[in-house]
């Protein structure tokens, strides 16, 4: 994929001409590629494309200085043109974005979207708030998918063995295939499709099967989520999809289930779960839900858990049987079931008190408790889970079941058919089996058995390279289609733009194969829609404008299975628990937070987004537990953990988990062997892992992903077989003496007993409601408000009381002194303080999903810097997610095995007394009248003093021209290639300046959104004083995307806004408040809700215990 000649837009005629930068419009318009693109994108005429130009950070000052001596009037007054429409398109107002609904297709859960477009360029993806379960949230993958559309490595042309082919040739080929197989009823045809929820696709596929009944149509997703559905399908012959209702659940047990972060439906689950965690006042503390998590890997769900039990994934069947037995025993309802479950002999030993306390807790909240199991677990776990849910009254109250289609043939069937040698045509639609097929299928050899292979794919990836034909596929933002959310609600896939390149929609390809007369994807989608509804235009328009079809969710049943059916299924199930040791490990294949299953490997935003638990960017590693690390160390003599430094010896620092040398992690490489296959990969210690479970994140080590994703990390797919898709036992790990540097974005893992993330237990919170403000330095040195200490938030943010200052300090209630009209006698009384923006982040709701990080990157034109620069510590994220582990202080392990995890999103805190502002010598960062800490890039000279003086370290400096230079050639300066793909530029938000090198940048509270809302309000206000923006009109990008609504933004000067109400919460505190910087972003302390009856429960959260342990002992007077 390094063949850049394929992407004409990458090759502007004058790409090495520096002057192009500030005269870009003409030069850009000159390039044939651009003109061609223009013709295609705006058939009715060119737009007023000043938006494109605006995105440049204009360096006209610098440029004209350089040319001052030449006396060219063209430099002094560079001539630019404005290209207005020839014929104005309807609804398109130059400069105003247009929003369209759509959805991001995925295998089981289309995420409903609203896409912001500027002059028909999609620039930002947001969730569709009309779909209430997800309430407008998206995950990080959906946020980042807009970048894929403008990926210069995307496939722009179809090609066959002889080279590029045009669209007509592809269509001819499709017709040829169809004609050929019409005669043999499809016997020689195999279709391998990726997972999809599209009703249109399944309609076309049904037609295709009807036409070619002997064709094999199989579906393959490397990370399918069919665990529960197939388990129940074996009983009832229809697949049942469990739909848990977390908002109704007060007690939740998650059996190796990461329902908050991985798997379909997570957005709705996270939102519902967070509702049970949002208690703002101590008197409501008991309303909080409690989450037990039993897991091997340390997932985000486990991080949110109040009780977390570490257990191997292969032991989950045993655990489920023990829990089922205990629940049934205590409930005493169904002796038959109890006997059947107890008959399942298990050798797993779990503290019986733990089990009984947990079971009792569930039963005490009968009807409001819930057990969920991970989709990757075997069928018996799901059956046992159903049994428990039945016993605790969950079925019908906190969980429902929807009937869904059964999974079709699998990739194994395809390989069998291929090996039989009868396959003339193998047509792969999407997916990348050459990279991610199970290793035991030997896909690469099997493919060779086919007569002809075709691959419809967005990228020319590993599979494309194996196939005779590669058919370029359109991005979903260029495509018509439809889909369903996890609960079955039908949502549209609507194009924002005509396909930029000569690419195909999957629906068209399938329709041509099926011999449909209608091959236009729009018409296909419409026909499918019409079949589901009354088929009126009005209904379809409503569908598109709402972005969903109301009441189209799957019908649900409360208890579709009987206990008897389950017991039959369970009888004889194997629930034995394997014995693990350092010589016999359990290997878990996990979805990557960066690339999912590898499909997002070429997405720079995702690659650079630090994985929430390990904080790796651009890398993956085998994750091992601290105990395993110590055992491997002593067995092999290779050092994994670093030497104890003097500070550690002195008890001033916690022992590091990883060997950092000069700020870079040097990880040892190990040989991982399982199922007779071996790979080499770096190892990394994660506290909190089950002792002998090791985790291999999938989706790395791509060879044909593109320039971003090639060769990043190691590929774990070669270890993965059809029989061990998620959990493989008997793995061994052998350390080598080699080491490799990993790009870890967070060196230190411990909070060091500092009162940063403040946490309390429900019980102590009830006793000390304002504990969050009685921690840290603030407990004895609070911010200096003087006599105004007890005034309201509104008073403090507008009047800026300064304690005992001898000087007159500016107040937001006063007009600026140089505006005479407002300083006249009597005028000040009429003056109204501008709205004062502030933000509250609820750490009880934040799951650490990273969506805010990518949303911010997308909204604010934040560049990526590449692996090397991340290792140097120069990542540019405006919001970062700090992750702290805290071990039990009584645990004398160097690296704790059992940890509690705390996440804290830190962006610019917009301090009222901002320390960054006072040190800027050029007034480049000052406060505005709305309390924002603003950063004028065009005034910044780049002293970086502000970044030094920021106690939160949230300022980011443009050390190089990230937006201009190829990230691999930044050190070459002007000699390096100018890497500014025209495609990538189209993603940029025209309302945010693209920063050049040498300037500082940071979170602005999405000032472009604030200003847009204010301007709109001014337009509405006209000749009136109604200039206040109503609460909720402005959503910052991070707030908008947050699945759990953990981020709330609004006007603090109005006591009735949501954010002001949250500021009243008992849990509200300022990070490093003692500095008297008075941040406008405050945090709601985290509350944990442990069960007092659980053995070795914790009296206070580990963070708090370690804070107390590190507090200086008071002197006895």
């Amino acid at each position, binding site marked *: 994929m390094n063949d850049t000649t394929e992407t004409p837009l990458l090759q502007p005629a004058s790409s090495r001409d520096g002057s192009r930068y500030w005269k870009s419009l003409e030069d850009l318009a000159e390039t044939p590629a651009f003109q061609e693109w223009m013709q295609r994108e705006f058939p009715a005429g060119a737009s007023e494309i000043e938006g494109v130009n605006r995105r440049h950070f204009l360096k006209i000052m610098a440029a004209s200085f350089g040319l001052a001596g030449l006396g060219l009037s063209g430099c002094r007054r560079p001539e630019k043109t404005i290209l207005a429409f020839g014929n104005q398109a309807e609804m398109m107002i130059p400069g105003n974005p247009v929003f369209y609904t759509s959805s991001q297709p995925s295998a089981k859960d289309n995420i409903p979207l609203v896409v912001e477009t500027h002059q028909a360029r999609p620039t930002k993806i947001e969730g569709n708030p009309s779909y209430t379960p997800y309430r407008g949230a998206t995950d990080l993958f959906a946020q980042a998918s807009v970048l894929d559309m403008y990926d210069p490595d995307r496939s722009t042309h179809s090609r066959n063995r002889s080279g590029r082919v045009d669209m007509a040739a592809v269509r001819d080929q499709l017709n040829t295939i169809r004609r050929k197989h019409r005669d043999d009823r499809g016997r020689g045809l195999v279709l391998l499709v990726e997972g999809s929820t599209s009703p249109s696709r399944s309609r076309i596929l049904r037609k295709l099967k009807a036409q070619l009944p002997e064709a094999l149509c199989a579906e393959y997703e490397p990370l399918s989520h069919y665990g529960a559905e197939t388990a129940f399908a074996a009983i009832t012959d229809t697949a049942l999809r469990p739909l848990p209702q977390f908002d109704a659940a007060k007690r939740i047990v998650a059996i190796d289930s990461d329902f908050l972060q991985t798997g379909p439906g997570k957005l709705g689950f996270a939102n519902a779960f967070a509702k049970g965690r949002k208690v703002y006042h101590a008197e409501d503390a008991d309303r909080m839900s409690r989450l037990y998590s039993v897991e091997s890997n340390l997932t985000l769900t486990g991080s949110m858990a109040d009780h977390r039990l570490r257990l191997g994934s292969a032991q989950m069947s045993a655990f489920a049987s023990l829990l089922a037995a205990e629940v049934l025993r205590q409930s005493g309802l169904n002796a038959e079931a109890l006997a059947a479950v107890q008959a399942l002999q298990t050798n797993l030993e779990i503290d019986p008190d733990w089990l009984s306390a947990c079971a009792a807790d569930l039963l005490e909240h009968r009807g409001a408790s819930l057990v969920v199991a991970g989709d990757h677990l075997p069928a018996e776990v799901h059956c046992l889970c159903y049994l428990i849910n039945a016993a605790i009254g969950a079925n019908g109250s906190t969980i429902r079941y929807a009937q869904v289609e059964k999974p079709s043939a699998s990739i194994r069937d395809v390989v069998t058919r291929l090996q039989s040698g009868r396959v003339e045509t193998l047509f792969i639609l999407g997916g990348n089996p050459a990279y991610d097929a199970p290793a035991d299928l030997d896909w690469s050899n099997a493919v060779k058995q086919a007569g002809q292979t075709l691959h419809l794919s967005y990228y020319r990836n590993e599979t494309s390279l194996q196939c005779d034909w590669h058919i370029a596929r359109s991005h979903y933002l260029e495509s018509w289609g439809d889909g369903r959310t996890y609960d079955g609600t039908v949502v549209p896939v609507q194009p924002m733009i005509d396909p930029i390149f000569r690419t195909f929609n999957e629906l068209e390809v399938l329709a041509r194969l099926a011999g449909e007369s209608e091959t236009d994807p729009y018409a296909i989608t419409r026909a499918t829609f019409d079949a589901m509804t009354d088929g009126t235009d009005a209904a379809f328009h409503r569908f598109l404008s709402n972005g969903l079809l109301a009441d189209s969710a799957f019908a649900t049943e409360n208890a579709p299975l009987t206990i008897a059916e389950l017991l039959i299924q369970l009888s004889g199930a194997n629930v034995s628990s394997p014995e693990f040791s350092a010589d016999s490990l359990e290997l878990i294949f996990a979805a990557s937070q960066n690339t999912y299953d590898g499909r997002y490997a070429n997405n720079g935003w995702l690659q650079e987004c630090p994985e929430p638990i390990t904080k790796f960017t651009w890398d993956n590693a085998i994750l091992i537990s601290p105990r395993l690390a110590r055992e491997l160390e002593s067995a092999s003599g290779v050092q994994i953990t670093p030497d104890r430094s*003097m500070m550690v010896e002195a008890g001033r620092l916690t022992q590091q988990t990883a060997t950092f040398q000069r700020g870079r992690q040097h990880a040892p490489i190990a040989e991982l062997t399982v199922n007779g296959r071996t790979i080499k990969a770096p190892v990394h210690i994660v506290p909190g892992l089950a002792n002998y479970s090791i985790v291999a994140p999938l989706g790395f080590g791509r060879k044909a992903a593109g320039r971003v994703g090639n060769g990043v990390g190691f590929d774990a797919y070669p270890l993965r077989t059809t029989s061990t898709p998620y959990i493989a036992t008997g793995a061994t790990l052998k350390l080598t003496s080699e080491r490799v540097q990993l790009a870890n974005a967070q060196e230190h893992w411990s909070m060091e007993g500092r009162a940063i993330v403040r946490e309390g237990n429900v019980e102590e919170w009830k006793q000390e409601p304002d504990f969050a403000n009685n921690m840290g330095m603030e407990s004895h040195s609070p911010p200096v408000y003087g006599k105004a200490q007890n005034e309201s938030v509104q008073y403090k943010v507008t009047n800026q009381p300064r304690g005992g200052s001898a000087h007159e300090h500016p107040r937001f209630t006063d007009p600026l002194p140089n505006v005479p009209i407002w300083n006249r006698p009597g005028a000040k009384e009429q003056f109204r303080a501008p709205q004062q923006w502030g933000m509250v982040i609820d750490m009880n709701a934040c799951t650490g999903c990273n969506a805010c990080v990518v949303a911010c990157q997308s909204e604010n034109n934040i560049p990526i810097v590449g692996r090397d620069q991340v290792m140097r510590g120069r990542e540019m994220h405006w919001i970062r997610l700090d992750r702290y582990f805290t071990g039990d202080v009584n645990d004398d392990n160097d690296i704790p095995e059992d940890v509690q995890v705390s996440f804290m999103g830190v962006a610019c805190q917009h301090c009222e007394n901002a320390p960054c502002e*006072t040190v800027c010598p050029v007034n480049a960062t000052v406060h505005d009248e709305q309390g924002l800490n603003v950063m004028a890039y065009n005034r910044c000279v780049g002293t970086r003093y502000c*970044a030094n003086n920021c106690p939160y370290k949230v300022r980011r400096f443009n050390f190089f021209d990230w937006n201009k230079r190829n990230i691999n050639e930044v050190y070459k300066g002007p000699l390096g290639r100018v890497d500014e793909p025209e495609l990538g530029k189209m993603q940029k938000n025209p309302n945010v300046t693209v920063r050049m090198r040498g300037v500082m940048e940071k979170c602005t509270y999405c000032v472009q959104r604030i200003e847009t809302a204010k301007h709109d309000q001014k337009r509405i206000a006209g000749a009136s004083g109604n200039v206040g923006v109503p609460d909720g009109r402005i959503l910052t990008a991070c707030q908008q995307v947050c699945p759990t609504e953990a981020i709330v933004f609004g006007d603090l000067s109005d006591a009735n806004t949501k954010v002001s109400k949250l500021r009243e919460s008992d849990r509200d505190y300022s990070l490093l408040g003692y500095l008297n910087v008075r941040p406008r972003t405050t945090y709601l302390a985290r509350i944990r809700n442990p069960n007092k009856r659980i053995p070795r429960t914790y009296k206070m959260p580990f963070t708090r215990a370690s804070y107390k342990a590190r507090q200086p002992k008071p002197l006895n007077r």
Partner: protein
Amino acid sequence: MATTTSNLPTCPAQAELLDQIRPAEHKETPLVGNKRDFPWVTEKICTIVESRVPTWWWVAFAMALFTASFTGVGLVWLVSTGVGVWGLANPVNWGWAIVNFVFWIGIGHAGTLISAILCLLKQGWRTSINRAAEAMTIFAVVCAGIFPLFHVGRVWFAWWLFPIPNSNAIWPQFRSPLEWDVFAVSTYGTVSALFWYMGMIPDLGTLRDRATLVLRRGMDETLTPLQRKVQTAIWTLRKYGYGIFAMGWRNAGNHWRNYEMAYLLLAGLSTPLVLSVHTIVSFDFAVSIIPGWHTTIFPPYFVAGAIFSGFGMVLTLMLPLRALYGFHDLITQRHIDNMCKICLGTGCIVGYAYIMEFFIAWYGANPFEEFAFINRAFGQYAWAYWIMFSCNVFVPQLFWFKAVRRNAAMVWIMSILINVGMWFERFVITVTSLANDFLPTSWGYYSPTIVDIFTFFGTFGLFSVLFLLFLKVLPIMPMGEVKFVMPQADPHGHGFGDTAQGANSEMKGGAH
């Protein structure tokens, strides 16, 4: 030996008594050794400028120029490519550049101190070293100024730091210590240059007059015509070059009167200036809120450190110079002793500050502060801390011993160690405080790149280039002031030795 010229009426008995009094021998070591006379001083100093350039000078100059080119290359790369070519990153956004800036500014301080404060304190021994020390100040400020100027991300906009009216109608922000720095450092550079220049005016007059005399007398007859032409051209150049800058100085009594007053005033102005400059430099750190920076002890601590490092540098430069040019009679052991003692004293102040910081960190009961200091001494940069501590606190203790002070080689080595230690002091303050501050998630490690190292290395070359040019082109000692502290300068004949008088008359005879 007459003791008084006053005609106070005294009774005979008293006079008799007075006659019997034999004042004790004047024990103070003379500031100019070997009872030299005025012409010797003039010759000694002017000959350096007027004679042929020695080979070692050319060698040294070539080496210095080569070294200085490292800075040039480093800066070109920096400006063309971005600040990223340095090792800076979050959280350490200031690295070697600022360390070097403070280091060089500190070096400069000894020069002003010698010329100004010692002048005010009427320390006669300063005269022979003050010109070179002032030159050192100016060149150090030049080297220092490079760093804050070029460390900014967009150096072509650095003029925004100056209050220049512009069509954006925006001004600098005067609450920023960096803005104070702009004023302090530019004032410091300017005033030092003025002071230096003014002190040089009489000496430039001397060089001018000597050149004029040589030209009037004609070139040596033994030379070939071509050589004579070349010689004439050189001397003419000197005559006009020095003549223009001498501004018509005539050594008149009235000139000397105003000059002395102006000199005293400039010394008086330079003294608070030099104290304020390092105070303001220390504000760059002290005004911030970063633990380890946010310290009220910084101003005196920085000033003491600056004097300490400055005298270290004076010794490093002067000792080889003394050997090369044979200045043993001008830079005497007494000078070296005094400078060693100043180093000892300021070294102790600095050491006290180091210890006091720890005490305050503990006593202040702020865990962030406490950690910052413990981390300095035992954390990831402990090596730098202990280099600093040994060089700055332990090494100068050797100056208690006279034997050490009298061993020039030893003093020279120690002076270099002091410079190393003081560079590390700035490194420790700047880097360790930033690398581990409030939030452990934002901790990091800073290491310089090759560009950092070469750019700094090159400034020594730049300094040497400037200093060598100074040695060659300008009078390296203020002749008037040296003469002023010689016994012959006394208008009442005190301290006239026979030799001095004799030499003086010899000179008279020889001159004509």
